[in-house]
């Protein structure tokens, strides 16, 4: 009995037979239906813009049959009430509300059947203005936190589906160096992720690196097969090969301009080259990606050229110029003895290690003064060069350190000591150096809101070290020959369009905003490229806004997704790490990456 019943499962009452008819052949079919004893169900009318689509629904032997008819708007349709007298209700409906005209209806209400409301009165649901239905879609929090407004949920979805090339292209649309960013970006997007309230944000940065590395494996390199726009005949000079310069050169080149990139050093990269250590960003990856972008954009790269005078440069026939010279002047320690031998500034130190691949002998004990990311980089580099005791002095507390938490944590794992609330007083020269330092206590807050450290009564200390590395910040120093306006801290003054005080000259990156980070510099490059393009007669690049034509849904199995744990980034063991400059983080494998990408809540979904 149960099997018999089970066999009688639901038959498909979907659309069975559809026939196209015209007003002339309508009666042929309707007569057929009448002869076979079919039952009339109803008429559906749709307004398709220029004409109406009229669908007649009939039922025969428990199956639904449809007749589709398209008529122009003013044409008169013969009524079928002669055959099916009950059709008068449906025909009157269509006539009243859409204006479809019928002839010879048996009961004709003449437009008085349904009283159409004369105005749009109160309605339970939201009102609509105009014929297009409203769709609400907004930018997700992660996109809003990113300085470059990369379309993060979109590339996460592409990674989840396995479309690595699409993900790579999505990122390059707004930030042209994904392989680099996936290793070095400080990821404000992860702090903006809504899952952070439960302390499980999506590993957006590692997914970016995964996309770039997978694309490289699939493609055999990072060079893409893309086309530039047709040449505009204009020439632009970009001074400085750091992130801002590379970004501006790429976007201007893709828009069709002839770009020449002038870099002081022998290799491109700027702060990415000398400032970021090799265990975080391997230099071959960096070079490969920058070269790929420059080749795609058709940029003429001139390394080893230092620009002193802008007037001479512009006289070579450029229509515009972008300054991205970066910052190089290290802040001084302002204490006695800073000229002693063994005291070096971090720029010289890191440049020697990262650019020239030297291994300077830092001795056994090293003291690093400073609390930012550069101090962490210097300390960890010193550790890898053989120093056994590395101490970091910072004049405020641990919570107020500007370095990112991952860097500090990595430093602690590698055995680096921290001395908080200490500041240097005097450095006595000799071998080893003797540093006299002062304990501090937090005092009143200064203008940035952080508490100003005040010397503690009688708190002095001495420490011996072989090398002291000064890492308390650096500033911009623009050559005189540029003849552009600078502010009191040496930064180039620009307006909202990245224009400087000199005509046809634009600026961005660290040179204009002071020392910041890679992603902000990439943003500056793109925005300045857009501005320059408009100056040269083009349209500029598009702003970040939600794509109204793509429809995105939240996932169906949200409960399962919310129970997944955050994937941890695989790292090298701390003891092994300090023996070499090998890259610390390993990329996800495919299974982990797709699972992590599936955890995204898709905050940019449609309403």
């Amino acid at each position, binding site marked *: 009995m149960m099997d018999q019943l089970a066999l*009688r499962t639901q038959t498909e009452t979907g659309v069975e037979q559809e026939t196209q008819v015209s007003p002339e052949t309508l009666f042929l079919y309707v007569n057929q239906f009448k002869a076979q004893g079919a039952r009339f169900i109803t008429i*559906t009318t749709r307004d398709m813009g220029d004409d109406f689509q009229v669908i007649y629904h009939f039922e025969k032997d428990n199956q639904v049959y449809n007749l589709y008819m398209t008529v122009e708007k003013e044409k008169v349709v013969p009524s079928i009430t002669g055959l099916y007298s009950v059709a008068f209700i449906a025909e009157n409906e269509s006539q009243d509300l859409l204006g479809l005209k019928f002839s010879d209806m048996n009961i004709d209400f003449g437009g008085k059947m349904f*009283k159409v409301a004369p105005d749009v009165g109160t309605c*339970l*649901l939201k009102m609509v203005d105009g014929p297009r239905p409203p769709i609400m879609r907004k930018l997700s929090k992660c996109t809003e936190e990113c300085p470059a407004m990369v379309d993060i949920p979109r590339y996460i979805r592409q990674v989840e589906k396995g479309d690595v090339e699409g993900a790579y292209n999505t990122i390059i649309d707004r930030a042209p160096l994904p392989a680099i960013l996936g290793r070095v970006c400080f990821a404000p997007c992860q702090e903006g992720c809504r899952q952070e309230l439960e302390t499980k944000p999506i590993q957006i940065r590692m997914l970016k690196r995964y996309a770039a590395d997978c694309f490289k494996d699939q493609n055999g390199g990072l060079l893409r097969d893309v086309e530039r726009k047709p040449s505009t005949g204009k020439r632009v000079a970009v001074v400085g090969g750091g992130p801002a310069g590379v970004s501006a050169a790429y976007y201007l080149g893709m828009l069709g301009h002839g770009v020449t990139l002038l870099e002081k050093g022998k290799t491109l990269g700027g702060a990415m080259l000398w400032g970021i250590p090799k265990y975080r960003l391997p230099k071959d990856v960096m070079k490969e990606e920058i070269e790929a972008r420059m080749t795609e954009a058709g940029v003429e790269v001139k390394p080893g050229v230092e620009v002193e005078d802008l007037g001479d440069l512009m006289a070579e026939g450029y229509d515009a110029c972008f300054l991205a010279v970066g910052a190089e002047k290290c802040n001084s320690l302002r204490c006695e003895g800073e000229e002693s031998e063994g005291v070096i500034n971090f720029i010289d130190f890191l440049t020697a290690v990262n650019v020239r691949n030297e291994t300077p002998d830092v001795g056994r004990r090293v003291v690093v003064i400073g609390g930012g990311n550069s101090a962490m980089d210097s300390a960890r580099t010193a550790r890898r060069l053989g120093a056994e005791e590395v101490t970091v002095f910072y004049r405020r507390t641990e919570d107020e350190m500007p370095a990112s938490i991952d860097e500090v944590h990595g430093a602690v794992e590698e055995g680096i000591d921290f001395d908080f609330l200490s500041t240097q007083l005097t450095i006595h020269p000799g071998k080893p150096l003797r540093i006299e330092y002062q304990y501090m206590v937090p005092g009143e807050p200064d203008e940035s809101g952080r508490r100003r450290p005040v010397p503690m009564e009688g708190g002095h200390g001495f420490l011996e070290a072989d090398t002291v590395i000064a890492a308390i910040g650096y500033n911009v120093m623009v050559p005189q020959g540029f003849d552009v306006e600078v502010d009191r801290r040496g930064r180039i003054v620009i307006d909202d369009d990245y224009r400087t005080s000199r005509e046809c000259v634009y600026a961005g990156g660290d040179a204009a905003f002071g020392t910041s980070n890679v992603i902000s510099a990439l943003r500056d490059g793109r925005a300045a490229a857009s501005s320059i393009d408009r100056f040269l007669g083009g349209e500029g690049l598009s702003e970040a806004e939600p794509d109204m034509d793509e429809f995105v849904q939240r996932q169906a199995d949200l409960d399962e997704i919310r129970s997944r744990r955050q994937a941890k980034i695989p790292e090298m063991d701390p003891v092994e790490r300090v023996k070499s400059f090998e890259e610390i983080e390993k990329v996800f494998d495919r299974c982990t990456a797709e699972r992590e990408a599936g955890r995204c809540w898709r905050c940019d979904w449609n309403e």
Partner: protein
Amino acid sequence: MNKQVEEVKTTVFPFGPQHPVLPEPIQLRFVVEEEEIVDVIPQLGYVHRGIEKAIELNDYRRNIYLCERICGICNYMHGMAYCESIEKLTDTMVPLRAKYLRTVWSELGRLQSHLLWLGLFSEGVGFESLFMQIWRIREIVLELNEATAGHRIHLSTNVIGGVNMDMDEGLVNRYYTDMDRLRKEMDTLAPVFYKDKAFQEKQVGKGVLPKKDAVHLGAVGPTIRGSGIPQDMRKNYYEAYGFLDFEPVTYDGDDVYSRTLVRFDEVYQSIDLIEAALKQMPEGPIVDKNDRFPDGVAIVRVEQPRGECFYYAVGNGTIHLERMRIRTPTLPNIPPLLHMLKGYEISDIPAIVHSIDPCMACAERITYVDKGGQ
């Protein structure tokens, strides 16, 4: 022989839209000749709310709540039919337990609707305390609704891909107890409906709709089942009806009385169906979602308490549906009503109009034309 030419005077008088007997407004203008009805002219459109257009302008996930509010009495089946049409458009398979739950709750909705109708009808023919009795019995069903889902009338448990509330042991036992109680209460009413002569006087022989007229005029629901034709959409085996054993209830009288008896017997049938479905219900998940957008064309027909309801949905792959056409059962019952009123007297009007169970709120939600000239 004198040819006597009689001047027969005809009067036209309106019935409705407000009338104590009507649950919802409809205007019928009767052309009468001295107490006998000659012709009827209907006028609809008093409850028109522009729902079909509103469905097009809304996100398809929120439309469930909109469709439920087309009619307060048959609300569960509207929501369920809408969900079924979207499930067809997105190729979703509903799990078996969800199908059983939907069946149980549909039958509960049918119970509630028939009890409401029986009460209103009794009052329409003059039995006012019977009306109160029946509505007191209906409270059992409403309280059961509240225990299940939180609301007395709008259960709102449909989602696309299944249901979102489950029944545990305690609730299922409560269903059994309440169904028993309901059956006992209905047994006390049965003598009135089956045997009472005064009750039958108002109904037997009135509003006759012969078989071939019923088919030709396209009647649906108890209207046609009261004329002996077993047309019931539940035999299409949507949801879990394929696993339940039942036959449509028909009576051969063709008049108002047989329609009343059809509905009365359907109450018993619903009680049996609920008990059978609860016994057979398997364990398992209750919802199966996916994230595809509706695309294509789908047709769904469900059996509401008043007859066959037809949903035609067109989707285009975005979050808005392109067109939704809903044809509710009262609409095709109006031509038979116009036919069966002719030849009877004014005092029979309430009983006859009521016998098709007019639910005009369902009937009017056709496309709403924007003043902007679409």
